[in-house]
């Protein structure tokens, strides 16, 4: 994405630039038509579009244009909450539409020139932009009303979509004022609300996607049907890096409903009138694969290599003080090793993409998370200009990072198929669950070692963290910004920014480059492993020093009030320090973990029961979160509840295993997800804050696994140092 040079518009240029281009009208309601007639304007406008994020219709509809993907994290509702508050709209009349792919208007302000959703940035980057968009719309409505009523703007109030002037008794809805407001010039400066004036932000604003997602009407990519559309199911290589040597499509072509079979760089695609026929056709294909250049190691061999690498020093990611001296002079040292498997995102909607190819452009329907990257990749493949690639951003049935392809993998696969049939029909690429699970782009497998140096008086003197794992960013458009001196920032995030005061501190990293498994960001990225090793190891340090885990952390958090704040809040609400009730003979324990990610701070206290056979039941998780201004508190609770369940899946079950390069798991039978009977009771406590809002989609994930492992240690005395947990170790 570095090649995408986008001009940075000033806010004023931006607003003016997008206020143009209003479209032809229809029958106008009397009030607005009168206003226009008086103003001497031809009635050629149907809506009030003060900027790229807002459209107010004469029917009182308030449409918020969302530049970010809604994949469950609540972005549509959050963006609308911010804008509608500054606009003083009636929440019940607010609707959300997805923005087209257009990096000039809809770039992620924290990503520079690219539009996309990820890194828990949707609210953080949109906060001021959406407030200004709403306030601008409000100011123009007020100006239009003042002109019409011949009153000062000062006496005008706006509430729930109604503009009123109490002194003169005038009153009008947004819809009645829309056309007049469209004639107003865009103000250079707008007054934003003081936080105490918020009416939606920080209050209850129900989700905008609940209705459509509970009556079957919400449209995901899987639900797109176009005239003459063909469904493609693809035979993918059984190994990463294998290629098609030859194939026999005679049996596949004889399947009723199958219309074509084409070879593409990713495999062999069977096209049919419907999904089931395409699947039957794919199953009837006979493909011979060229595995000469394929990656053939198994997970255990990869791990063995990483263990070897970990015996030597890697690239230095961070160093403070002198760890060598600290360890040489230590009264005691602790050492531990940690293993993390590959993880699949496994969203409930397997990946898919619809593309219609024409001579002067193409149109895409996709749960689109990497709008600009995919737009440019498609433009490159088809030989179009980016603006000839129209992308419809639909709801995604989960993603957890997977739809933010760093190299547009599945989008380009769909494109190659539609190109191979020369655009004769629109194509819906459908990955069956097995295609999705075996396609790679996993959270990378990692190996860590941790060493601590303790003095004779209960102090933590030294900390040395070594990590071994593939780089996510290498080879992606983000590499230039995210990989410095051979260190991928996402490999060591959460490890280098440990908040604890430790005088001698070192983190080093090995980044193997000869592992042919595609890897990708997976909800919470590096923190999905660094939080586990650091927070369980610190618990071991506390035990070794004979200190309470919360007390030790607080002692080491003197300069980090927001970390300390959530830790204290979670501990207090969880009843930390009070004995945990347990029947005689039942092993129960409580554990805590704290982690900062995506500029948000989360502490979690887990309570577990460990059965005689070693099986672990997490009974309760108390979360405390500081994510700055809580835009939509109910959504924050929802995200943390979900993050606990998502992370518990990774703690208990999540593991993609390679054997001879082949991915063993293919469906939910081999890659189980947490079920409702295993879901703990989750309580969420939100720190009140006037800081700018930060991430919420991911930060709830990292602390869960270490909190549970620490609780298991409290219950059993056993330290689990690999994910997923091997609970057979806990049997008695």
């Amino acid at each position, binding site marked *: 994405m570095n090649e995408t040079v986008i001009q940075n518009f000033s806010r004023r240029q931006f607003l003016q630039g997008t206020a143009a281009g209003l479209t032809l009208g229809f029958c106008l309601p009397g009030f607005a038509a009168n206003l226009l007639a008086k103003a001497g304007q031809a009635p050629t406008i149907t809506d009030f579009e003060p900027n790229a994020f807002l459209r107010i219709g004469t029917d009182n509809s308030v449409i918020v244009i969302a530049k970010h993907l809604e994949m469950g994290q609540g972005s549509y509702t959050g963006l609308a909450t911010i804008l509608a508050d500054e606009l003083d709209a009636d929440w019940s009349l607010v609707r959300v539409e997805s923005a087209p792919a257009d990096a000039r208007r809809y770039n992620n302000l924290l990503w520079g020139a690219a539009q996309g959703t990820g890194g828990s940035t949707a609210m953080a980057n949109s906060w001021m932009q959406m407030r200004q968009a709403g306030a601008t719309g409000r100011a123009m409505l007020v100006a239009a009303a003042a002109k019409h009523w011949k009153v000062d703007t000062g006496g005008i109030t706006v509430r729930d979509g109604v503009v009123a002037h109490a002194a003169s008794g005038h009153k009008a809805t947004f819809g009645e004022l829309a056309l007049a407001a469209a004639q107003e010039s865009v103000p250079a400066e707008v007054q934003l609300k003081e936080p105490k004036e918020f009416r939606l932000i920080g209050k209850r604003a129900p989700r905008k996607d609940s209705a459509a997602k509970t009556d079957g009407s919400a449209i995901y990519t899987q639900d797109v049907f176009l005239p003459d559309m063909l469904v493609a199911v693809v035979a993918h290589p059984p190994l990463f890096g294998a290629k098609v040597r030859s194939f026999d499509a005679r049996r596949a072509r004889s399947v009723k409903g199958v219309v074509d079979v084409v070879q593409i760089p990713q495999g062999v695609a069977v096209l049919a009138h419907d999904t089931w026929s395409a699947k039957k056709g794919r199953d009837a294909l006979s493909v011979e694969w060229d595995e000469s250049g394929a990656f053939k190691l198994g997970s255990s061999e990869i791990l063995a290599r990483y263990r070897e690498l970990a015996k030597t020093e890697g690239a230095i990611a961070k160093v403070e003080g002198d760890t060598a001296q600290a360890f040489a002079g230590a009264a005691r040292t602790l050492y531990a090793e940690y293993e993390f498997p590959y993880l699949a995102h496994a969203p*409930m909607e397997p990946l898919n993409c619809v593309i219609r190819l024409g001579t002067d452009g193409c149109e895409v329907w996709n749960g689109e998370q990497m709008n600009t990257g995919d737009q440019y990749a498609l433009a490159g493949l088809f030989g179009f200009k980016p603006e000839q690639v129209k992308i419809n951003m639909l709801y995604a049935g*989960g993603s957890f990072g997977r739809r933010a392809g760093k190299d547009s993998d599945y989008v380009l696969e769909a494109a190659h198929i539609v190109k191979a049939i020369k655009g004769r029909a629109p194509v819906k690429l459908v990955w069956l669950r097995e295609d999705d699970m075996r396609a790679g782009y996993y959270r990378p497998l990692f190996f860590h070692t941790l060493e601590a140096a303790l003095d004779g008086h209960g102090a933590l003197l030294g900390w040395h963290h070594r990590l071994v794992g593939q780089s996510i960013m290498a080879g992606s458009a983000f590499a230039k910004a995210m990989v410095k001196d051979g260190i991928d920032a996402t490999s060591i995030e959460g490890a280098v920014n440990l908040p604890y005061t430790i005088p001698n501190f070192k983190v080093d990293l090995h980044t193997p480059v000869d592992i042919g498994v595609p890897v990708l960001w997976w909800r919470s990225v590096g923190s999905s492993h660094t939080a586990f090793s650091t927070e369980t190891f610190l618990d071991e340090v506390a035990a070794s020093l004979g200190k309470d885990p919360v007390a030790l952390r607080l002692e080491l958090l003197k300069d980090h009030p927001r970390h300390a704040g959530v830790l204290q809040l979670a501990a207090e609400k969880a009843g930390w320090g009070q004995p945990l009730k347990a029947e005689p003979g039942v092993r129960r324990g409580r554990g805590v973990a704290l982690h900062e990610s995506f500029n948000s701070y989360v502490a979690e206290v887990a309570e577990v029961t460990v059965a005689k056979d070693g099986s672990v039941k997490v009974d309760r998780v108390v979360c405390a979160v500081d994510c700055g201004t809580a835009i939509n508190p109910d959504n924050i609770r929802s995200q943390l509840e979900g993050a606990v369940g998502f992370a518990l899946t990774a703690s208990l079950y999540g593991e993609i295993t390679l054997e001879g390069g082949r991915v063993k798991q293919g469906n939910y039978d081999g890659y189980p997800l947490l079920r409702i009977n295993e879901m703990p009771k989750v309580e969420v406590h939100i720190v009140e804050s006037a800081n700018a809002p930060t991430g919420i989609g991911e930060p709830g994930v990292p602390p869960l696994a270490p909190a549970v492992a620490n609780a298991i240690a409290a219950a059993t005395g056993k330290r689990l140092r690999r994910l997923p947990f091997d609970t057979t170790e806990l049997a008695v």
Partner: protein
Amino acid sequence: MIKLNVNGTTHQADVNPDTPLLWVLRDTLHLTGTKYGCGIAQCGACTVHLDGTPVRSCITPVSSAVGHKITTVEGIDADRVGKAVQEAWRRLDVVQCGYCQSGQMMSAVVLLTENRKPSDADIDDAMAGNLCRCATYQRIRAAIHEAARSLA
């Protein structure tokens, strides 16, 4: 030509009798509320009712649905229990990505039709076949209790 009764309406479908009901509902009738998640009855996203009994439509041949009343999420509000479930799901904002929720609600309707006051254990038994990757389980549980209250 196969004749199907879906949500009280009769539909004709020119499909092979061994085609799973899921793909006939989705690709032939364009009733897309019923979702594909796994194809092997592991996730429950494809749950529909046959004469009020929950089935996984991804492994149910369309031929076995002939002559039965098929209910999908699009028809959920025609019934008092279904309406209560849908409203509870909305009041509590259960959904996140929403992809599994049609199946979740279809399972919840059967539970509440048979048991107007389910305990947490009853909910676990009835709902453990429906996966949610967003892990909205806490709200699913609460919404079932809420729907039960509204039906009492």
